[in-house]
């Protein structure tokens, strides 16, 4: 469905503007078409959310590419090659492109699958293959990483820290260039505008408030080795499971330096490893929160739970009080823009014009403020609960007609304790009822109370995970470097890829693309992943 009009929405000023969009022109200092033609690109971590969109995008936009080598991890009995051709090429975001290009068999000439694992030295690649590849790879794009916010610290370290070390060794052995994808949130607990020019090496977020300390990779690695060893050795003496203690250990260490979680802490160490390698040509790409695609491969593609998906699902479930900053933006960026950003950076690196750090974020030019998102969540809940057939009718009406509210963390805590006290009273009443009316009559109610409590607790945990990005801190990531790189492309490149978050119509994106994408792609996964628990 197309709409024919002379008017164009300008999301920044909030007005319609007349006439067609001004044509984009570049200075032509970087030519992506030229850079990618006859180029061999090695893609690490091409199986993730961003990875698959990037893979589809480069195949779709740059047919000139000579060879694409994709690293895929072996999974139990399934070889990397098998996984790639049966799973990855058949996945929803990649399949449309593959079909357009003539099917998987037509791509076998262009794509080479490299079985490997970042957790092993030199990424676990067969030494013979390595010998063949030496000097033949033009650029390595690394999208691999453990993106869980608070995994046991060893899982995060193995991939995000040691994996990066193995990757650097590989890049040096192949004598090539590196585009390393990290995250904007390595900035940690900071506020305001975050520059791309801040020194990477020795960075820790609390530097301004406690400048006396020195952050070094070696100390962190020593701490990590010792901590994991001690935790595992004291398996018998401590009552808590090792996994949980490893999880807390990572979070505490991250917090001590000022990072929001284990993920951003380990990603920052990874970045610092890249930065301290002498003679390495690299660019670090830092996307903000990566969200549903805007246009490519189709509007609304989404995957995984490390986006705002849990929040959208909770909002649709009828959560009313949202602790967010009234004046803060949520730094989100559609996945297809991230893929285009990485392509632009890779082209810049290939042309020798790469900068150290590129933020891929939206709020610098076109911020979407948190209170607006809260009201979108409310309207979605209104729609869903009005047309909901099952469940308590009174509860549905409440969720449909009571609007979402922006609240503070203090009132959130107060609400929570009130709610739990209420549930305690109900529990007590039911237990008393059990002695009077017998277990047969009361047990179903007790069970449903237990389920409700479990659900509420899960929601609280999810909300707490997102608090650093919604309430405690308010960031705007500067994106000067990517804009500059995009303005250096040729006009032909700009027909294929561009960087234009300033044109995103957030209302349309959030309501018609993002929320519907999450309902379609994430909700079913969420439902099945919950089943074993209950």
């Amino acid at each position: 469905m197309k709409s024919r009009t002379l008017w164009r929405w300008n999301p920044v000023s909030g007005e319609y503007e007349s006439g067609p969009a001004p044509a984009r022109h570049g200075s032509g200092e970087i030519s992506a078409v030229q850079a990618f033609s006859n180029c061999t690109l090695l893609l690490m971590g091409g199986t993730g959310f961003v990875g698959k969109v990037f893979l589809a995008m480069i195949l779709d936009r740059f047919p000139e590419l000579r060879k694409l080598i994709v690293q895929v991890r072996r999974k139990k009995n399934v070889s990397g090659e098998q996984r790639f051709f049966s799973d990855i090429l058949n996945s929803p975001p990649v399949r449309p492109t593959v079909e357009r290009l003539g099917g998987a068999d037509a791509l076998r000439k262009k794509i080479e699958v490299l079985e490997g694992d970042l957790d092993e030295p030199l990424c676990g690649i067969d030494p013979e293959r390595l010998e063949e590849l030496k000097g033949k790879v033009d650029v390595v794009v690394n999208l691999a990483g453990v993106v869980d916010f608070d995994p046991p610290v060893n899982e995060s370290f193995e991939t995000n820290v040691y994996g990066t070390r193995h990757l650097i060794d590989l890049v040096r052995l192949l004598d090539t260039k590196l585009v390393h994808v990290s995250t904007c949130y390595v900035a940690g607990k900071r506020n305001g505008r975050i520059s791309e020019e801040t020194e990477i090496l020795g960075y820790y977020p609390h530097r301004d408030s406690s400048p006396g300390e020195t952050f070094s990779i070696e100390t962190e690695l020593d701490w990590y080795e010792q901590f994991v060893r001690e935790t595992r050795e004291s398996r018998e003496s401590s009552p808590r499971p090792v996994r949980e203690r490893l999880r807390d250990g990572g979070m505490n260490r991250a917090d001590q330096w000022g990072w929001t979680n284990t993920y951003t802490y380990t990603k920052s160490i990874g970045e610092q490893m890249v930065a301290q390698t002498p003679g390495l040509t690299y660019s670090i790409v830092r996307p903000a929160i990566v969200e549903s695609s805007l246009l490519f491969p189709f509007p609304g593609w989404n995957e995984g739970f490390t986006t705002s998906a849990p929040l959208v699902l909770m909002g649709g479930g009828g959560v009313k009080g949202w602790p967010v900053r009234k004046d803060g933006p949520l730094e989100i960026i559609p996945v297809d823009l991230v893929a285009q950003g990485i392509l632009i950076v890779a082209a810049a690196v290939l042309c020798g014009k790469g900068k150290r750090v590129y933020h891929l974020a939206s709020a610098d030019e076109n911020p979407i403020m948190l209170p607006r998102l809260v009201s979108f969540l409310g309207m979605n809940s209104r729609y869903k609960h009005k047309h909901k057939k099952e469940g308590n009718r009174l509860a549905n009406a409440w969720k449909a007609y009571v609007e979402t509210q922006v609240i503070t963390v203090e009132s959130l805590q107060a609400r929570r304790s009130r709610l739990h006290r209420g549930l305690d009273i109900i529990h007590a009443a039911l237990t008393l009822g059990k002695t009077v009316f017998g277990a047969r009559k009361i047990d179903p109610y007790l069970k449903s109370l237990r389920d409700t409590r479990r659900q509420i607790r899960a929601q609280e945990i999810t909300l707490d995970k997102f608090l650093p990005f919604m309430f405690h801190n308010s960031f705007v990531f500067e994106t000067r470097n990517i804009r500059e790189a995009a303005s250096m492309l040729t006009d032909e490149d700009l027909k294929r890829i561009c960087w234009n978050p300033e044109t995103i119509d957030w209302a349309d994106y959030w309501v018609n693309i993002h929320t519907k994408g999450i309902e379609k792609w994430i909700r079913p996964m969420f439902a099945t992943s919950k089943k074993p628990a209950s």
Partner: protein
Amino acid sequence: MNKAAFYDLDGTLLSCNLVTMHAYYARNDRSLVKSVYQLTKVLLSVPLLFGLDLYSRSLFNVFSFRAYRGMHRDRLIGLADDLFEVTIKPSIFPQAKALIDCTRDLGYRNVLVTGTLDFTIRPIALHFGFDEIICNRLEFKNHVATGRVLSPLLAENEKARSIREYAQQEGIDLKQSCAFSDSSADVPMLSAVGHPVATNPTHRLRRIALRNEWPILELREESTFPPFLRPAKAL
């Protein structure tokens, strides 16, 4: 594709009433107190709108769009799906979908040409599977509706002009195309195509249609489609 089917919306495919639509937005304001206030305003405006409609259609339009003044665009977009489910879907005429499917099967490009606003149209267009929409847009200042419509206001002659322009840009033969409308205001649009169809016509349009020997179609009940639409599907 070199022929198109141009559709008017209101009264032709569905009977969506402006007052019920405004009442919907009033009912779904941010809080209950505001809702009651807004609903009172809508109820009070009913006699005024009724009188205006009898007096002048364009003045009626201006007034009806003024009701959006002060509304945030986020809300208009965010409530569009619910508005569709609650007030618009029940008012769709039983034969409307069959007619649109029929023109699509016959190779017409389905184009919706209506004075209704873009955010209201979206779910309707998706429901019917329109290929293209030409519609009105509200003017916004800093995301808030001013109560005016962006020019050119799509009505009467402007509709005919915009389908001529569309046909020229897309290489569509208007002689082979068809148009559907219920109102005599759309006579310029109907006259612009080779196969005009008076659909659920008003008395005035019925007279004009009979004079010009245009086929008359009723979508409110079981009816036969005009001869030029028959080869694909007989109903």
